[in-house]
């Protein structure tokens, strides 16, 4: 199909306009509201709507206030046809078809409309044509190729005929329907009958568990009932025997009580006799003990008297030994005192000798110290005469230097006078007289007024030149200051001053050396302290000399002292031995005295006890004689024997009756009987309770309910297996089919993608590629290895890809009839470089596809090489041909 011409009248803002279109690319330029979009709108409505339509969309296209309707007319070729087709909408509506080829024919109204649709249907894919148009404002949107049979056919052919036919689509739909009977569409979860059966199965499993549990409980009751019945039988059998046992044991217990009473009386009699016998035995024992005690005391008194005499002898010997030891100790102590005196006298002599030596040493030191001190004092006196210290000498040196400087300066501007003495001559220089030896020189400057008088023979008056006056004054000042300083220092010249300064320094060094020697001699001790020390020591030596019994000049004083000390140590040892011996004797004496005292006291106590015992024996005998007491003992023993025999007889009977066991047996038998009766009662109650429960549960018919549930569960399970098998088959078929269908779609979309890539490489670069979806939309763009989803791309890229996709689709179908591609105001988001490449693409595509571009920015399409340009002007009423 190729559009040749489009004409509008009274269409929105366009009164009348016509554009003629080229077979290749036609660029229709025009400002806003020039009517570019109106051409596209009119073209669509021309083919789509009948002239009689009342749609609001149509009503809006006719301007208000005019009598005629809105007219659109198009001239085109399609298939074998060349025709002109026009419609007028809203007012004076009309449809006219004028077929020029292959045979001339004119049709109007509905007939014309239907005929055009028939021609289009037979020749082009109207849906695709609608899809590839790019209207203003939709530049970012994807293309919908959903209903495009021709594109599908073209792609199918390009893909090698692997696309699906109607039959496959129907099968796919049926397979999906079958799948959806069992599974949800999105999550693939079981649904429908299968899900219901599984739910029912879970319910049945729960019911099975519940009923099984109830039946198990019922069986437990049955088992418990049987057990209780068994226990009840056993208890009922045991009960009479237990009752008889209790009666027998109670009778036995009464007999036992009688014997126990007899036994108790006899036990009392035995106990009484035993007490009486024990009392008599006690009294007899007491008397025997008193007699024995009396005899023991008498014997002890005799024995202790003998021991006392022996102790007295021992004590006297001990006292004697003590006295001897004491004397020995005292004698040794006296010897020690004498020896100590001798030692002390030797020590005094040694001390005296040492102090004398020390005194001599101090006196020598004192003499040295005094001498050194005197020398130091002399030096200090000498030092006091030297007044030129470092400061003063520096001052002198400085003044002398200044004076010389002045002399040089003055000398440079005035004549000098040099007098050389040929003999000793007295010269008065400015009033001062001085003797100059033979050969000495006197230099006088002429910078100041001065007078030299040689003896009385010659007077030389020097008057300086007027130019050196101020210099001379300064020189005089300096000179005077130097002379005054020298006078103050007691020297006549700087040379002498320097000699005095050197001597002062030497004196200081000598003083330092002298003080160092003095310190070495005295050791920080002053002469006065040393003198005092010497005086103290002299007095001490005098005292020691007075006390000394041995001459301090003896050569063997230390040997003597050592011998005396050795004697003293030996004596100390003897003294210690004598002291120990005395202490022992003293202890022996004290011990002997103690033993003697104890013996004397023991004898006294024994005698006192003997008296007391004798009195007691006499009192007892007086009360009851021992013979009578022994007779009472014989009688009491007889009574005890009789009672014990009787008790033995009764006890033997009691033992036979097992007195302790009988009580326990009776109590136990009673308790056992009570317990058995209680058990019987409880078991009967429990049995009745179980019976009631069983009756209640029996009425429920649990077995059949359970069997019914089990049967349904098994039926349900079988049905689930059957339906699961069907479901898995449906799932398998659906998933396999859809997988192949998607694969086929991908194969099918490949030719379109390849065309997009072929063109896109020019625009974006060599490494450009796109992925198309099953619905033939661009999913992603890959550039320089980076893949970006379509929706995330920039506006410009999306716009360019949208045009490329439309061009690719148009080219694919161009081999058949082909169809024009209309682009309304696109490439508004494209930069200059890509405008150039897009221009090249459009130029290339126009060789096989008619392209109509509507734009208000003609510069965007200046890169399109071979384009026909048509300019529209606002409110134009005449045709503008190509420039």
């Amino acid at each position, binding site marked *: 199909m190729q559009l040749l011409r489009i004409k509008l009248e009274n269409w929105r803002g366009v009164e009348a306009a016509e554009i003629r279109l080229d077979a290749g690319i036609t660029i229709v330029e025009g400002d806003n509201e020039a009517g570019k979009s109106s051409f596209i709108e009119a073209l669509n409505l021309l083919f789509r709507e009948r002239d009689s339509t009342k749609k609001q969309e149509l009503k809006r296209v006719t301007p208000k206030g005019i009598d005629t309707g809105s007219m659109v007319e198009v001239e085109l070729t399609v298939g074998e046809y060349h025709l002109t087709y026009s419609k007028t909408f809203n007012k004076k509506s009309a449809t006219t078809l004028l077929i020029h080829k292959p045979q001339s024919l004119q049709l109007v109204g509905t007939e014309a409309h239907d005929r055009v649709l028939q021609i289009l249907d037979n020749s082009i894919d109207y849906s695709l044509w609608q899809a590839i148009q790019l209207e203003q404002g939709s530049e970012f949107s994807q293309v919908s190729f959903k209903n495009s049979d021709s594109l599908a056919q073209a792609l199918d052919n390009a893909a090698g005929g692997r696309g699906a036919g109607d039959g496959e689509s129907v099968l796919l739909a049926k397979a999906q329907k079958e799948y959806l009977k069992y599974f949800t569409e999105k999550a693939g979860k079981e649904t429908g009958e299968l899900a219901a059966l599984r739910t029912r199965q879970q319910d049945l499993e729960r019911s099975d568990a519940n009923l099984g549990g109830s039946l198990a409980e019922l069986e437990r009751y049955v088992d418990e009932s049987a057990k209780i019945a068994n226990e009840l039988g056993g208890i009922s059998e045991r009960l009479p025997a237990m009752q008889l046992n209790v009666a027998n044991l109670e009778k036995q217990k009464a007999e036992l009580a009688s014997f126990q009473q007899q036994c108790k009386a006899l036990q009392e009699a035995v106990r009484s006799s035993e007490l009486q016998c024990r009392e008599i035995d006690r009294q007899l024992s007491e008397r025997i003990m008193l007699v024995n005690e009396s005899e023991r005391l008498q014997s002890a008194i005799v024995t202790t008297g003998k021991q006392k005499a022996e102790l007295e002898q021992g004590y006297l010997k001990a006292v004697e030994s003590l006295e001897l030891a004491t004397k020995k100790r005292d004698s040794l102590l006296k010897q020690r005192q004498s020896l100590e005196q001798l030692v002390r006298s030797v020590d005094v002599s040694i001390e005296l000798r040492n102090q004398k030596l020390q005194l001599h040493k101090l006196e020598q030191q004192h003499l040295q110290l005094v001498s050194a001190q005197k020398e130091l004092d002399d030096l200090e006196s000498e030092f006091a005469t030297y007044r030129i210290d470092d400061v003063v000498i520096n001052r002198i040196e400085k003044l002398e230097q200044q004076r010389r400087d002045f002399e040089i300066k003055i000398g440079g501007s005035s004549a000098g006078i040099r007098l050389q003495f040929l003999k000793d001559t007295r010269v008065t220089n400015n009033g001062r007289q001085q003797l100059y030896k033979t050969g000495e020189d006197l230099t006088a400057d002429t910078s100041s007024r001065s007078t030299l008088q040689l003896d009385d023979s010659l007077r030389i008056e020097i008057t300086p030149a007027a130019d050196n006056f101020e210099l001379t004054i300064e020189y005089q000042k300096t000179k005077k200051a130097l002379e005054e300083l020298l006078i103050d220092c007691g020297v006549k010249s700087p040379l002498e001053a320097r000699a005095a300064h050197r001597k002062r320094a030497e004196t200081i060094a000598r003083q330092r050396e002298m003080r160092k020697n003095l310190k070495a001699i005295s050791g920080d001790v002053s002469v006065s302290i040393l003198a005092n020390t010497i005086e103290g020591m002299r007095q001490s030596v005098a005292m020691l000399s007075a006390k000394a019994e041995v001459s301090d000049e003896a050569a063997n004083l230390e040997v003597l002292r050592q011998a005396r000390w050795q004697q003293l140590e030996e004596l100390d040892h003897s003294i210690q031995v004598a002291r120990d011996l005395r202490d022992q004797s003293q202890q022996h004496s004290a011990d002997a005295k103690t033993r003697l005292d104890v013996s004397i006291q023991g004898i006294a106590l024994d005698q006192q006890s003997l008296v007391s015992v004798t009195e007691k024996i006499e009192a007892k005998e007086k009360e009851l004689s021992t013979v009578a007491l022994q007779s009472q003992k014989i009688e009491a023993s007889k009574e005890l024997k009789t009672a014990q025999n009787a008790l033995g007889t009764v006890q033997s009977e009691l033992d036979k009756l097992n007195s302790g066991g009988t009580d326990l047996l009776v109590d136990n038998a009673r308790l056992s009987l009570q317990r058995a009766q209680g058990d019987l009662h409880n078991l009967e109650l429990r049995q009745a309770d179980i019976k009631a429960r069983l009756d209640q549960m029996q009425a429920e018919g649990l077995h059949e309910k359970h069997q019914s549930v089990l049967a349904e569960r098994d039926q349900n399970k079988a049905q689930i297996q059957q339906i699961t098998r069907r479901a898995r088959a449906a799932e398998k078929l659906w998933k396999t089919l859809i*997988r192949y269908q998607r694969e086929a779609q991908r194969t099918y979309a490949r030719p379109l993608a390849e065309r997009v890539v072929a063109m896109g490489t020019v625009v974006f670069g060599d490494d450009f590629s796109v992925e198309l979806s099953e619905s033939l939309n661009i999913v992603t763009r890959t550039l320089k290895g980076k893949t970006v989803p379509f929706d995330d791309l920039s506006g410009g890229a999306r716009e360019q890809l949208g045009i490329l996709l439309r061009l690719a689709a148009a080219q694919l179908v161009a081999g058949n009839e082909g169809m024009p591609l209309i682009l309304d105001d696109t490439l508004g988001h494209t930069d200059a470089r890509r405008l150039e490449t897009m221009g090249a693409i459009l130029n290339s595509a126009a060789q096989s596809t008619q392209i109509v571009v509507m734009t208000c920015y003609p510069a965007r399409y200046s890169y399109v090489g071979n384009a026909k340009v048509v300019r529209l002007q606002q409110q134009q009423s005449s045709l503008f041909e190509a420039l």
Partner: protein
Amino acid sequence: MTRYFLKGEAQARFTQDRIDLIPGLADLCEKHGAGFVVVCGDVFDSNHVAPQTVVRAAEKLSRFAYPMFILPGNHDPLNAASVYDTEAFKALPDHIMVVRDHAIYRSDKLPSIEIVGAPWFNKQPTIDLCGQLVDSLEPVAAGVTRIVLAHGQLDSLMPDTSHPACLSQEKITAALAEQKLHYLALGDRHSVTDCHASGRIWYSGTPVATDFTETAPNKVLLVDASVGIDPRPRVEEIETGQWRFSRVQKSIDTKEDLLGLQEQLEKIENKERTSVLLSLSGSVSLSISADLDLLVEQHRDLFASLRIDELRTDLSVVPDQLEYEEMSLSGYARDCWDELAEQAKQSGGDAPISEEAQVARDALALMYRLADRGL
């Protein structure tokens, strides 16, 4: 008794037939001149059956004119929940007797006959109840015929005889030799069984078939063990129940085989009381498989139940070339078919078909069906 494979009215019919057996027995007694009936256990599936089941059975029994001795068995033991202690059973006439202990029944109404039984008191006895009974018996008086009723499995028929409740055949045969009994009527085994060469120990089987595993069900025994008819008592098997539980095994590879199966099914009589379990083998095409499904579907409601025994069925459904061509597949549908057909082949030799291959075969069959045998 509930059978899971019997649905709805088939189960109701089965239950009712079991109750209706009681008047049927009375008719047989009359027809063959029987003096009394012994039932050796498991009259009821459980002591916990619904009260209406007990009442309906008791109602039929109350009309039963012949003496009947009912021995409690392992399913209906004489325990605290015994069905025989319900009011319905207590109200039965005196000639309907439940054997409750080892007491020997003697009556003028049955001269020269002694009946004694070993009832079960719980579901899991720990002793040989029959052996215990015969040990306690004295030899029968001259001219008296003693019938012993017992329930359980004879050790001579059991692979494992270690269970303490097994019935000792040795004791029984010794008791027979000692003239302590003349005939032992046994219950528990659902197949008629002559257990001893003397012909005096029999399992009577079940009067109404209940399962596919039973041998010679639907029978009662007519026994004359009277003294003086030595050496063997007269024992006659009499048909009673109409229910059949049939296994049908068939190899199907061709449409002719399928027709053979159809004929086989159609020949079965009394279909409403027949439960059929099909065990099929062979290899069939999709169309034959679809026809088989149709055949089973069409006959399902005719029978009490008609099922394919999946465990014993090994039927390969493999599409053949004709079917493939018939479908005229193209495009991705053809690719899908090829893949499924390849997966469906994945089972080697006699090995059972893999699950994946089975699913693929089912998917192919479904595809064949959905394509209406041609696209």
